[in-house]
Every structure is written in C-alpha cells, then in structure tokens.
C-alpha cells in the first residue's frame, strides 16, 4: 500500500500539497517518530509548574508526557507510561507530588524518573519476586530532555538535537521576547476539538485567510491586507510569523482590496463597542501576531489578547487546540479586565477563533474523497521562499511543508 511517506510531492517548491497527507492511515505513527519525537516540542509555561513537585500532563504529538519540578525546582519530563506494564502513571491533569506511583502494581518513581521501589521485589517468604539480576536503575521512566526559553518550556526525545535557543533561532527569538519580556499571569485555558487533521491548522496559522475569513479582523482593523504587514520565515527551521500593525493604511486601498467581498463593512456598527475600548499593551501599533514554531506551537497576539496555542493531534481527522491565555504580572486591574473583555475574540466561542475551527472542518470535509488531488498554494508567488512585506502570500505555508517533508524524509518529489 502507498503510504504518505511515498506520496509523490507534486511540486518541488511546495506550491502543491497532496491531500493524502491529511488523511493517510499510516502517517500518524510516522509523524510521531519523525516530526514530534526528535524536535523541541512545547510542553507548557514555567508559571504552570511554579513550585517543586508541581506537575501537569501535556503532550509530545500524541504521547502523553508529565512535566514536573524536582525538589530543587529543576524541570523534568517523562512519558506517562509505566516501564513495567505500560499503565498511565499520573492520572490527574495537574497537581503536586514529590514522587509518582503507578496505581496498577505500585512501582514508585522520583520526579526525575528513577525507579525508587516496588512491592514484592523479593517476593514473599523467599518465593516469587523479581529475578536476582533485576536492577532498578535500568527500569526508570523514559525521560525527555527539557529546556526553557523565557518561561516557555520545551521537551524532546532526541539525544542529538542542539539547544532550544538555536532551535528557536535568531528570527523568532526577538518576537518571543517582545511578548515574554514580562512575566505572564495565567488567565485560563480553552480547549477545542477541531474535526480536521492537525496540519490544516498549521496552514491556517501561516496563510492570508485572517483578513478574509474573519469579518471582525477586517472591519475593526485588527488584520487587513492593507495594513503594514510582514511575513518572516525561518525556512531552515520551519518557523514563521505574521505581523500586522495599524500604520499607514489608506482607506481607498482598503476599499479596493475588499471589493467584491462582504468582509470589510464600513456600515457595520456594534451596539456595545466597549470590546474595542481597551488600551493597547504596546505602543508599536501591532494588532496581530501569529507566530508558528515548528511543529505545533502558536504564540500570538490578537489585539490585547496574548496566548499560546498547541495543536495536539488526536487521530488523523481530529486535534485538540489547547489554548493558554495569559495576562502579565505587571498588568493592573484595568488591563486584566480588558483582556477578559477581549476573551470574546478568542477561544472556541471567539468572534475570530471560532471561525478557524470551521475552516478546518470545511477543508477536511471538502477533501475527504480527494486523496489523489492537491491544494494550490501560489499566492505570493512560486519558487524561492523569502520574507514578505505583505500578507497577500502563502509563502509561509510552503515553508512549513518544506520543513515537514524534510522531517518526514521526503524529498521535493515526495520520495524517501
């Protein structure tokens, strides 16, 4: 049987994406091994595990992982599966514990994964028990390497990948710093089960739909193609960010850009516009930042809302979009209240984000019987992949597929 790994990539500049990659039966395991396990995957924010013993359940691809702090406050992460018979060890989403015991046969592990002990090691009255050569040291938990950048925690199963600092790279780090120059303060989580392949959401983070699908973006000036815009790529690393600022916009151009659509509506009025009456967090006029860190992390800003979104695959046709919504430690009550108000933009019910879930559903439904066809990705041009000073481009989508194909060991023609 043909698998995704042998799918013909229909264009060496990635201006075509074979629909098969969104529906292939065999692709998930391959992605786990080649895309998620060996890269730096976002696990959570440092403020989610502030104290020794704090833990949360998180994911690397589909693998459940526990992120925790040891007694000295150092971060550690392990696969949430007992080395004995494979049972899930930590069974609550979050908590505080200085050791973790598998409920099935009571194997007990330290926060750094060492097997501390197990009942019946020597059996009872000299009978049963583990073989004499049983060595606790070789039955610890499967650990990840963990590193932190500016309060963002990542983990990897790779022993060879370079430091996180280099993985994020010089083009993304300044953008991360812009948001995380202040300590975040957790406001809450949102979870959406979106009925599409996870990679359709990655595409969503990198294309020009924002100002077209989302009337609120267009009409209320959060994202319009006529605003000052920049698409920055790190082609080698597979990252990108889209950034829009409310500078130098010409109304006539805006009208022309939206001619023939019903998305930019100068007549559209809100009965209660206080949603928009919130003082900007920065004086740089930036209204929208969508940063995408390979493979499945989004960091971003919509107006006054700042968030991480993790794309957690849950089968070929479904993923959880997991949002961590935060304010900043030095925000005053007014600023925090403004962010709660603007929660109406984001999350599963948000004026903007609800529509992205629908976009995923639409595409997955639309392509379901077209595994042999491809999408057409030429907005912004073909060939070379370069930064752009506009958002009328899908170049960041192409750059993602290039990096993905490399990770999956597919060449430009889709061959291994």
């Amino acid at each position, binding site marked *: 049987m043909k698998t995704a790994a042998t799918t013909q990539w229909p264009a060496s500049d990635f201006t075509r994406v074979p629909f098969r990659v969104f529906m292939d039966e065999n692709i998930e395991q391959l992605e786990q091994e080649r895309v998620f396990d060996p890269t730096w995957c976002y696990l959570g924010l440092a403020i989610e595990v502030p104290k020794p013993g704090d833990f949360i359940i998180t994911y690397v691809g589909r693998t459940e992982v526990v992120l925790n702090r040891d007694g000295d406050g150092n971060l550690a992460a392990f696969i949430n599966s007992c080395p004995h018979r494979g049972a899930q060890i930590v069974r609550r989403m979050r908590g505080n514990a200085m050791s973790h015991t598998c409920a099935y046969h009571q194997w007990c592990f330290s926060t750094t994964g060492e097997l501390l002990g197990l009942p019946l090691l020597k059996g009872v009255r000299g009978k049963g028990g583990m073989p004499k050569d049983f060595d606790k040291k070789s039955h610890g938990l499967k650990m990840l390497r963990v590193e932190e950048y500016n309060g963002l925690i990542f983990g990897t199963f790779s022993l060879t990948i370079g430091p996180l600092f280099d993985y994020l790279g010089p083009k993304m780090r300044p953008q991360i710093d812009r948001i995380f120059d202040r300590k975040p303060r957790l406001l809450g989580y*949102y*979870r959406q089960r979106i009925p599409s392949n996870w990679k359709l959401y990655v595409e969503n983070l990198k294309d020009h739909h924002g100002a077209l699908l989302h009337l609120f973006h267009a009409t209320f000036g959060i994202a319009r193609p006529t605003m000052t815009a920049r698409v920055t790529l790190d082609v080698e690393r597979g990252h990108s960010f889209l950034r829009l600022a409310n500078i130098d916009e010409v109304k006539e151009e805006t009208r022309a850009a939206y001619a023939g659509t019903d998305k930019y509506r100068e007549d559209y009025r809100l*009965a209660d516009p206080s949603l928009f009456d919130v003082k900007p967090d920065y004086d740089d006029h930036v209204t929208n930042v969508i940063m995408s860190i390979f493979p499945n992390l989004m960091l971003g800003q919509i107006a006054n809302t700042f968030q991480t979104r993790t794309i957690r695959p849950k089968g070929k046709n479904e993923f959880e979009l997991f949002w961590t919504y935060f304010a900043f430690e030095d925000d005053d009550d007014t600023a925090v209240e403004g962010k*709660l108000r603007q929660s109406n933009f984001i999350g599963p019910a948000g004026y903007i984000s609800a529509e992205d879930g629908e976009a995923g559903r639409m595409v997955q439904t639309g392509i379901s019987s077209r595994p042999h066809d491809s999408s057409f990705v030429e907005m912004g041009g073909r060939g070379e992949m370069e930064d752009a000073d506009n958002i009328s481009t899908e170049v960041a989508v192409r750059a993602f597929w290039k990096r993905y194909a490399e990770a999956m060991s597919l060449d430009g023609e889709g061959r291994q």
Partner: protein
Amino acid sequence: MTKLENIAPSARVEANYVLDINDLLDDYTSAIDRNDLEQWPELFVSDGCYRVLSRENVELGLTAPLVYYYSQGMMRDRVTALRDALTYEFVYTRHVTSPPRLRRRSDGDVAVASSFSIFQSTEEGVTRTFAVGAYEDIVTQTEHGVKFRCRDVMLDSFGVLNNIAIPL
C-alpha cells in the same frame, strides 16, 4: 454572585414567581432551539450579564471566560454577527434541561440553578451531544416581567466540539 448553594433552603420563592421564572427559562431554550435568536437578548435586563465558563478554569480559580457579554447590546451584537458576519456550521439545536432549583436572595432576586444537555443535529439529520453543563442564574422582577440579571453557563464539556457559535 451569591451561589444558590450558599443560600439557606428556607429562602423559598412564592408560587406565582416560580411560574414566571419557569416561563423565562422555557423562553430562553425555546428562542435558541427555534432559531429565534433575536429574542435571546430580550430575556436579559439591559445591563445583564451572560457568560460561558469552563469548569476546568473555574475549579482552578482562573478567570478567563469563553464568552463574556456584560450588556444587552453585546448580546445583540452577537446575534447580528451570527446572522450577518460569522462563518459557522449550520445546525439545529435542542436543549434538555432539568427542573430548576430556586432560592430567594437577600436582595429580593432569585438564584436559579439547572442542568442542561444540548444536542446538535446537522442538516442531514445526524445528532451529536454537543454540550453538557449547568446554568447558574440570577433572575429579577422588572416592569417588563421576569428577566435574567445574569446567566452563567458552566461547561462540563469544556473540550468544545469545534466551536461555539450560537448561545448555549
């Protein structure tokens, strides 16, 4: 807001008022299930509050709501957007709610709590359980009848099936 659980069970509500409150709750689900969304904001007082909350966040003491409309105007804006602007999947909805529990508050308003299930059916008639949770309300007597002062929609199903478009 004072939770119903924190009010003494002796704080009973008169029978006539109970009937009016039941009508309000019925009008709410009926407005949504019949797709008469324009009626939805009218069931609130003008500075009424409608929130959708995740049980996960509430239990963690985290304040971010999924929806936070603190005026009738914001609710009308949502309806306008649903009719005219937002892109979402058309579905039929059906609410099934429990009988409400009622307590009279010290300020004369009534705290109301009920459980709900919301089913969605596609245009091809396939049904899924969309949301399960509880309503926590404060209702008040006005010259135009009984209205919601606030309605909190507490979601057990905070792992939302795709998205929330129309009010819950």
